[in-house]
């Protein structure tokens, strides 16, 4: 599965060519060419339904485009129209990490187990250990350490559904620390957080991004500069803007969020329609 070391040093983290995602008749996302180098911190902005999350779902392997070439961390996949949607989902790789608002934790498991999950694929833990909840002690120590890094060591035995939104987000970060991904996809990671928790999440994400590539979707424009060196604006399924975050002008942002001409806004497919099954 992993790419040869040589290409790992030269390949970009992400490269998309002529990628098209269609839902029914409407085109949800169309990317002619997008290249993100390893170690870059990129912020994605754009109105709701523009296609930002769809792009994330392509990169994480949850969604197959109808057309195009997707290269993630040296792993290339080609898609073409007739078989596009039937293409089986690739095996997720621990090198791609996803974080959203902490809603993807397992509610009935405690914080420690939720953190441990991040290490299962990386440490190649056997499935029967998950069944018996009997994990190598080294992995447990690592998970405790990850919880300590996010300041949640005192809540290790608290169930995820008894944690507050901010605490859940921190456990999700701890899981990411365990996972050690090379590419981090953060989908509105601060959406439900108060200012203090937001600041904490931003600094944690930046710490995780050291030695990794970080892509973040944000809606708070004040965070653009803090989380990225490069800004990509997506509007109506197209990349409308791609600049260093320092050079982002107010007029460019205004154009990005201007209401589209009536009847032209593409529909973003609902999560349910595309992910009924896990494979």
């Amino acid at each position: 599965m992993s790419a040869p070391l040589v290409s790992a040093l030269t390949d970009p983290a992400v490269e998309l060519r002529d990628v098209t995602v269609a839902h029914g008749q409407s085109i949800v996302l169309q990317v002619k060419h997008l290249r993100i180098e390893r170690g870059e911190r990129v912020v994605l902005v754009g109105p709701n339904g523009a296609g930002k999350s769809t792009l994330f779902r392509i990169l994480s392997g949850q969604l197959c485009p109808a057309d195009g070439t997707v290269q993630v961390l040296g792993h290339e996949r080609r898609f073409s129209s007739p078989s596009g949607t039937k293409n089986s989902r690739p095996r997720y790789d621990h090198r791609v990490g996803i974080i959203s608002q902490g809603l993807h934790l397992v509610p009935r498991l405690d914080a420690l187990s939720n953190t441990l999950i991040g290490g299962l694929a990386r440490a190649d833990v056997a499935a029967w250990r998950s069944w018996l909840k009997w994990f190598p002690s080294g992995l447990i120590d690592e998970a405790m350490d990850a919880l300590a890094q996010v300041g949640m060591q005192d809540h290790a035995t608290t169930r995820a559904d008894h944690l507050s939104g901010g605490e859940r987000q921190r456990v999700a970060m701890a899981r990411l620390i365990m996972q050690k991904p090379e590419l981090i996809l953060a989908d509105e990671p601060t959406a439900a957080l108060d200012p203090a928790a937001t600041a904490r999440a931003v600094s944690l994400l930046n710490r995780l991004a050291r030695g990794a590539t970080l892509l973040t979707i944000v809606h708070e424009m004040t965070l653009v500069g803090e989380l990225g060196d490069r800004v990509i604006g997506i509007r109506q399924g197209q990349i409308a803007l791609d600049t260093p975050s320092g050079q982002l002008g107010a007029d460019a942002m205004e154009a990005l969020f201007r209401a589209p001409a009536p009847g032209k806004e593409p529909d973003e497919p609902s999560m349910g329609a595309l992910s009924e099954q896990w494979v």
Partner: protein
Amino acid sequence: MTPAAWGVAYLAVVGLCLWSLMGSGELSLGRTPWQNLMATVGDFSRPSFLDAWWGPQRLEYRSDDGTVLRVENRQVLEREFLWAVLRATWVTFQIATLGSLLAALLALPLGLFTARNLPAPRWLSRAAHGLLGASRAIHTLVFGLILVGIVGLGPTAGILAIAMHSMGTYGKLFAESIETLDMAAVEGVRATGASSAHAFFMAVWPSVLPQFASQHLYVWEFNVRDSTILGLIGAGGLGLLISEAVSLFQWSRLATLLIVVVALVMCFDAVSSRVRKALL
């Protein structure tokens, strides 16, 4: 059809049932319902277990010319009957408990196959769905009658009958709780690169296990009730004593048996609802 039209259709069905029954003159309470009711209440008003302590120690049965036919010590007889009731209650409980567990174990894979959000092959999920449907459609008593012919009289037939029928109930309940599962957690585990086996054990299983346990208690309780009548067809337990009491017109013993059934079900209900609350 609109909801209102469905309502009208429902009323039409009820009307048809009533009209056809009344038309054939079969909807009647009999000739002397009130006397019959009073007589039954009278029969039931002195449950036999009272005799175990306060019954006559020497009850003489005489023929018309005064000859003593038989002498009974009611206290001894009814105490023996109470022991028999206790043993039968235990058998009933055994049937319900083992039958429910067997049903749950059989239904678990079938439930997993039929849940639409799990990736079972289509033919397998169809087959499991059909099997569960058939199992639900056939009543425990019918399974019991068939099984008595196969494995003979006794609790084994009862256990198997309960298992066969409850399997369908369990399978449907299990599949439904898996289908209402929050897939975000499952996707979250998959997103770390973990295998689907890990996702199952870490996300699916812990989320559905409390629901499964609660459903198990519910069906188990239902089966405690159900297994009290299994004895009617010879599958052991309280039902056997009930059928004996009815055929010998021993209404006071039937009253004792019904009190035991009600007490058993209520005790089980009290315990299981407490456990269910603790689980969720």
